């Protein structure tokens, strides 16, 4: 047992963990997919994982969500369960195998949402303290109007919890969504410095943002690898 642990330790964690954070419609997923393409083109092994996407937990969470009887604490714990499942099953083993793990939302989403819902700040942080610190955490800073325009043009129907309707901020779902998202922005902004977010101006064009992100990633690659990196023709 001890020796196998020592052997495992020797392997270390050679992979890179890149996460994107920001409110809905800030353009995270768009940028992460472009990043994935670029990394794959350069022959890296890549795994992309999304918030609240574990199959095992999903069916149960949506059952509760439909009934709209989740409390801030159960909401938080179910999302933590989902995260833990992806972390234990995929994220950690793949990082140990040397993958680029791209996470579309990470623990900071829980920090922001759960605290906004009324959970204790320290409690949420301690619950997630088993997670690895990312090599790079991009935060997409965007004014609420712009993100709302982007979201609503593509998909006009807002969901109950997404709009923070459980918080009784407003009876109007759009108004509720706006207030809820603004509160989440406040949370993100309050942790940006401490957590060392790489802030991206999400009002910029898609290409411009991607260029900034790739430059940041180049900086965390080993010299040897860096020289071989190419742009997709």
């Amino acid at each position, binding site marked *: 047992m001890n020796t196998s642990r020592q052997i495992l330790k020797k392997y270390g964690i050679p992979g890179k963990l890149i996460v994107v954070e920001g409110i809905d419609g800030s353009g995270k997923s768009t940028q992460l997919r472009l990043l994935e393409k670029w990394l794959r083109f350069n022959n890296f092994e890549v795994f992309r994982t999304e918030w609240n996407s574990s199959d095992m937990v999903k069916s149960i969470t949506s059952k509760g969500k439909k009934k709209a009887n*989740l409390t801030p604490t*159960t909401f938080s714990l179910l999302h933590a369960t989902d995260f833990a499942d992806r972390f234990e099953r995929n994220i950690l083993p793949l990082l140990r195998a040397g993958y680029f793990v791209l996470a579309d939302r990470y623990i900071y989403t829980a920090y922001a949402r759960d605290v906004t819902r009324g959970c204790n700040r320290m409690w949420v942080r*301690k619950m997630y303290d*088993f997670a690895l610190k990312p090599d790079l955490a991009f935060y997409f800073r965007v004014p609420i109007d712009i993100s709302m325009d982007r979201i609503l043009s593509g998909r006009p129907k807002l969901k109950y919890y997404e709009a923070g309707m459980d918080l009784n901020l407003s009876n109007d779902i759009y108004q509720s969504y706006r207030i809820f998202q603004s509160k989440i922005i406040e949370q993100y902004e309050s942790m940006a410095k401490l957590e060392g977010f790489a802030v991206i101006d999400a009002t910029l064009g898609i290409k411009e943002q991607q260029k900034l992100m790739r430059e940041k990633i180049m900086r965390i690659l080993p010299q040897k690898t860096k020289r071989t990196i190419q742009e997709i023709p």
Partner: protein
Amino acid sequence: MTRISSRPKKTSASTGRQKRTRSVKTDPVRSIKKRKPVWYGNSKLGGMPYLQEHDISGRLIVIEGPDASGRSTQIEMLTARLEADGFAVLNTGLKRSELIGEGILEAKRNVSLGKRTSALFYAADFADQLEHKIIPALQAGYVVLADRYIYTLMARNTVRGIRRLWSSNLYSFALVPDLTFYLDVDPFKLVHRVFAKKQSLDYHESGADMGLSEDMFESFIIYQRKLAKEFEHLKKKYGLVSIDGNKTQEQVNIILQKQISRFLAKVA
């Protein structure tokens, strides 16, 4: 007859922005002293800040103990006695929440969950019961008899290699019970009680997921020993009252009833 049958309104438990609900006018317990609930977390680490201000008047009594230690039997006997004495009683246990109780069973059948994942899964299930069953019943003045509580969940985590501190931080959202008993039974005796009931050892109560031994019997004994050892720590830390569960049902019941009656009389 006095058990809660309908789920309480979600509004009272879902946010702190609601006004305190005082829907219960008659209190089924003799004592109607309202008081602030006591949580394991302090103001820095409380898990349910949005419920801090809601008063309760009931009492929470927990029976802990290993598989087949006689918890359910004791709770049944205690319930009958308390109800005869005029108390409104609610029974709860782990794995019974409407939200995810079924989900845990399904997940157990189909896939093996990581230790952190199952720890959080059980915590979610427990939180759901705490907020939707236990707290509303305490607000309504019930005596809640809980078949296991956070201690079993924490012990299971610890024996699987999760740090104690992580578990105690996690469960800082839980209410501090008024009384907690631990039915202490020798693991060898437990096996015989289990066999008397169903001739096979439960996969999870044997810690079979931990790969302790190929032999199910051995696995059960090793696992129960580990849990018992962890409970020694928990008893001290959380002040659980240890009861010798090797005695007969009747003997154990007399001890429990005496302690509970004394406590309820004292707080009445």
